[in-house]
């Protein structure tokens, strides 16, 4: 092809290029098709099972009257606690790394690499940590707060990385301007950098939260797979929505599988709502410098 001089004229049809393009379309299509089939399948299976009973009643051995109320409530509590714990810790860490840390120091580099590595630790390993350290080590027991701490540690690296990106996007001219007016380091960070970075931080945190409430394995490890018929408390036994779904999937009766599909719809709707909030914040408040 490259050796023979091509005659000048209309370009040859690029058959290989066309085939290659089809291959690319196929790989994109596979992901899209799976998403569509998955959502369709879950809605077909569970759509008619999303009822007031599912949302408002406790679980039962009879699928007809079984609900997920304690699990839904626990997931909401877990979400709020995770948000409450992760955001201050994550933002503070990101501020330290971006605004205070001297990148040449070995311990600051270690902090960075450490956070990157933590982001890649499998979630079940966080479950092991929870089992050994929080449930048994400090003796908190198999309670909702233990679950919230595990999910917090699991989510923290993601929030830190997102917050760092948001802080890094604030242009240096803003900082220099504030310094020129006599602001101290913390005043610059607190009154200029942080407010400007909040939309990015909020978006990243909400997305991380929506991942956290979908986590099953670490909660399974710390014993969230229990029969809970009462409304959860922070220091009481609990089961979360994904764990409830897992529990129903394991049941031999087909009705419970349909109920699991219904609970999946509830979980996906919660996550969709969170994601929409994140996207709205991103589009409405994010500044372009």
């Amino acid at each position, binding site marked *: 092809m490259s050796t023979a001089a091509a005659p000048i004229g209309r370009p040859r049809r*690029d058959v290989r290029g066309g085939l290659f393009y089809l291959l690319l379309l196929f*790989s994109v299509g596979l992901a899209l098709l799976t998403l569509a089939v998955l959502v369709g399948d879950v809605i077909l299976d569970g759509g008619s099972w999303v009822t007031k009973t599912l949302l408002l009643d406790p679980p039962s051995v009879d699928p007809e009257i079984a609900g997920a109320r304690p699990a839904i409530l626990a997931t909401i509590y877990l979400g709020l606690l995770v948000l409450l714990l992760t955001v201050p*810790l994550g933002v503070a860490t990101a501020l330290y790394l971006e605004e205070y840390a001297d990148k040449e120091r070995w311990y600051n580099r270690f902090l960075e690499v450490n956070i990157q590595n933590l982001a890649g630790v499998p979630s079940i390993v966080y479950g092991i940590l929870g089992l*050994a*350290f929080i449930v048994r080590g400090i003796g908190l027991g198999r309670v909702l707060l233990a679950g919230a701490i595990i999910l917090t540690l699991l989510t923290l690296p993601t929030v830190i990385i997102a917050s760092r990106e948001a802080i890094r996007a604030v242009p240096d001219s803003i900082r220099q301007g504030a310094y020129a007016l006599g602001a101290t380091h913390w005043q610059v960070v607190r009154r200029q950098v942080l407010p400007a970075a909040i939309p990015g931080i909020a978006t990243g945190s909400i997305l991380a939260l929506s991942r956290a409430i979908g986590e099953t394995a670490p909660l399974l490890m710390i014993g969230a797979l229990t029969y809970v018929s009462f409304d959860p408390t922070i220091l009481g036994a609990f089961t979360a929505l994904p764990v409830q779904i897992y529990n129903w999937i394991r049941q031999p009766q087909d009705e419970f599988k349909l109920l699991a599909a219904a609970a999946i719809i509830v979980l996906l709707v919660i996550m969709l709502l969170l994601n929409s909030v994140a996207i709205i914040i991103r589009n409405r408040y994010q500044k372009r410098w």
Partner: protein
Amino acid sequence: MAVHDSAAPLTLRAPRRRYSEDIVRIVLLMAAFVSVVTTFAIIISLLRPAIEFFTEISPWEFFAGTTWTPLFLEGEFGVVPLLVGTLVITFWACLVAIPCGLGTAIFLSEYANPRVRAVLKPVLEVLAGIPTIVYGYFALTFFTPFLRDIGVQVEIFNVLAAGLVMGVMLIPLVASLSEDAMFAVPNELRDGGYALGATRRQVATRIVVPAATSGIVASFVLAISRGIGETMIVLIAAGQLAQISADPRVSLETMTAFIGATAQGDVPTGSIEYKTIFAVGLALFVITLAMNIVSIRLVRRFREVYE
């Protein structure tokens, strides 16, 4: 500071030390320290019971043994079946995730116009955000029956459904990281290719992909690591039959599935079953950590080359 030099009437004196500034710095550093504590807590919580485990079971028996029956009365502790199960399922996942993820990345980076990208990227984010328990449900209740319908004689719990569905789950991860790497390839390289008469396909496959290799490989390594660490899909759809087999139609047990299934029951602290969780967990942690470090290194390399 420069400001003081120009303001002549000011009395010059050393600035007052602002202790509040130091306090802020210390508070922020303490927050950053939480991540370090987490890492050490993970290592300690894995190591202590694992060391106790290895005083009872020799490492040789653990790493070379081919029978895994730790919950039997006279249990055997050969972890090879779990390793094989993990690798076989990850292999099937990568068979889907690597070509399709790379294809999606090339499409996004080299072919798609901005409007298509604006639609496709959020859809991929949704795909990446679906909880793994949902993929598990999908593999068990839809994909396994579907495989049977098209004539693949799979067991109820099988490697094929779990692996392929996991592969789809990993597509967005491979796609977004590979696309980042391709995005970092400077346009001059593409223009040079076009100037020499290359087609779009040739520019994509012979210039952009080779130039972005380290980032693309990093995405593959990360996908493999994610696959090895994935729990819920395999727990639900691949079952818990610890055997050595390359047949994807049967059930296998992975390291994660063993940990997840065993820890569900209230295993008594200090028993050998309890310690087994940590020995397997340690193996899992070391494997995924090594792969993550490799992938972080690779990503840093392409950042250094082009940014």
